[in-house]
């Protein structure tokens, strides 16, 4: 039998329906692959018993001929999603031992459709990071290496475990979340596809909050078709999330025609950054040529406030985080610090949060506290929200001018070595999100598509940004780009 773990989600679905193999066989193949891949540290809580039970049940549905797309398909779930009775701790010590008695809306929807959960995936603590190095479980490792070098590379972050797991065939697909680039950057670093949908497309209920006005969940998959299938399964209105959009969810897969003739693709000149590696610039040009060859019109556009997106993000995201993370007080869930004789309630809060939060989370909570504090609220927080409005207006104007999608690089580099940024100041790490963060601030859908390898043999991604609620058209452009780029490389197995 062929190695079932190599199948795409669509191939697995079709094979299950055609009875080429069973859901329990498919699940066992993944469970064996996962146990042989501990060196990647992608899974932080394995759930083989749950997976086997779900696979058996899925098989009865498949046998009855009543199977949704994801029925019997094994998935990995980012640790940020609450999963009933299974540790869900956002890779933070402060949620040590937390087992929610409920599921997030997304995981509930996936379970109802028959998806199989293989386990929980590594990530940066509270999704704050771009390299998976802030995780309390230790970092996940990129299955890709620089040629024959043994240097361990980052899978990116924050959804680094999800990216590593998909790239190494440790699940058919995975859930991710994206606040500033946390789906798209790791997807680019590992040669897979990741889409952040329009804000409000996917319910945030039961996903541990980082910055509520920016957070969106989305799929991380082996190809664009899989992203279309899984996005549909994750989307939909949820009364439990007041920002969830009450809009019909189209059949995204059916919209993948590959025909993009007449589409207008914008290339924003502000994304041509000083010091951008030549390989990235060349890849960007090649991507534009591929879309032109497929019949699209390429147009230079301007998004003048791009430069201010990262600084605006580093006011808004920490401000919202400082508010969201106030709930970790050692009272209702998670960890409480050991107290000394005579310690009062403030000592309990302060000690619990000092030992429960890692350095990056502490830093962001404190920056957020500062920008929201009396006397600074207008100068920082309100100013950042005004700049955010201008960033969104840049996109609105481009789309009003007839632009259908915008093509940019996904990241300013390929995957870097774990520990290489250890002595850099925090701002250096933040620059990883320079091409992706605008999309969160404007609430738009953005997808990262693997488009080539650099001279070190590492994958590089291109990003496509679409109009709000037009994920179907956006994925179709991505599909056309994917076919033209013909990216088929897989990491050589060393783990």
């Amino acid at each position, binding site marked *: 039998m062929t190695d079932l773990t190599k199948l795409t989600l669509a191939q697995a679905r079709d094979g299950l329906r055609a009875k080429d193999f069973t859901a329990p066989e498919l699940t066992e193949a993944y469970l064996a692959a996962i146990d042989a891949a501990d060196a990647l540290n992608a899974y932080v809580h394995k759930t083989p018993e749950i997976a086997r039970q779900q696979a058996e049940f899925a098989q009865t549905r498949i046998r009855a001929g009543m199977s949704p797309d994801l029925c019997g398909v094994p998935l990995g779930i980012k640790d940020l999603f609450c999963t009933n009775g299974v540790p869900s701790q956002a890779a933070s010590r402060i949620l040590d031992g*937390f087992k929610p008695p409920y599921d997030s809306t997304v995981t509930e929807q996936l379970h109802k459709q028959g998806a199989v959960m293989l386990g929980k995936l590594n990530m940066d603590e509270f999704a704050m990071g771009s390299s998976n190095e802030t995780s309390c479980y230790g970092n996940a490792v990129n299955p890709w290496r620089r040629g024959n070098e043994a240097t361990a590379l980052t899978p990116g972050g924050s959804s680094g475990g999800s990216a590593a797991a998909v790239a190494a065939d440790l699940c058919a697909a995975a859930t991710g979340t994206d606040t500033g680039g946390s789906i798209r950057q790791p997807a680019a670093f590992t040669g897979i596809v990741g889409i952040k949908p329009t804000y409000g497309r996917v319910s945030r209920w039961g996903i541990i909050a980082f910055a509520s006005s920016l957070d969106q969940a989305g799929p991380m998959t082996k190809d664009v078709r899989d992203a279309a299938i899984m996005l549909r399964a994750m989307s939909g209105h949820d009364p439990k999330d007041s920002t969830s959009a009450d809009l019909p969810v189209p059949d995204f897969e059916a919209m993948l025609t590959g025909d993009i003739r007449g589409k207008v693709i914008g290339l924003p000149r502000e994304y041509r950054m000083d010091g951008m590696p030549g390989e990235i610039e060349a890849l960007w040009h090649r991507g534009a040529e591929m879309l032109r060859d497929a019949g699209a019109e390429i147009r230079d556009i301007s998004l003048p406030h791009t430069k201010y997106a990262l600084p605006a993000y*580093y006011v808004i995201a920490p401000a919202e985080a400082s508010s969201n993370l*106030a709930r970790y007080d050692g009272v209702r869930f*998670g960890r409480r610090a050991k*107290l000394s004789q005579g310690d009062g309630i403030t000592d309990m809060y302060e000690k619990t949060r000092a030992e429960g939060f890692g350095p990056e989370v*502490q830093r962001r909570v*404190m920056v957020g506290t500062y*920008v929201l504090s009396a006397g600074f609220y207008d100068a920082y927080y309100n100013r950042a929200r005004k700049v955010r409005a201008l960033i969104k207006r840049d996109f609105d104007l481009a789309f009003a001018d007839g632009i259908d999608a915008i093509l940019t690089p996904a990241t300013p580099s390929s995957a870097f070595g774990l520990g290489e940024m250890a002595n850099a100041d*925090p701002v250096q790490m933040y620059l990883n999100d320079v091409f992706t963060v605008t999309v969160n601030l404007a609430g738009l859908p953005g997808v990262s598509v693997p488009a080539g390898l650099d001279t070190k043999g590492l994958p590089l991604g291109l990003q496509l940004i679409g109009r709000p609620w037009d994920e179907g058209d956006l994925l179709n452009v991505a599909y056309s780009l994917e076919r033209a780029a013909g990216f088929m490389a897989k990491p050589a197995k060393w783990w």
Partner: protein
Amino acid sequence: MAIDTETARKVARLARIRVEEERLPALAREFDAILGFIEQLNEVDVEGVEPMTSVTPMRLKRRQDVVTDGNRQAEVLLNAPDAREGFFAVPKVVE
């Protein structure tokens, strides 16, 4: 604007995160680097721009004001580090 040790101490206290005295100068320098980066926002002309409140133009939905859930004391207390007699337990708050 330079963040001094005193400001770092104040922010840590507001955020309810204990920071040891010897860590404060380094923390102040980190804040300084981040806030220096943020200062770029002062270059932008924001005259007459409304601060964004919602990224998609939507009205928050209303729902019926009815009880839809409840009687889950055991589940609510399940994850508490210290729960006693149906309550969350904390150190003494009032003397």
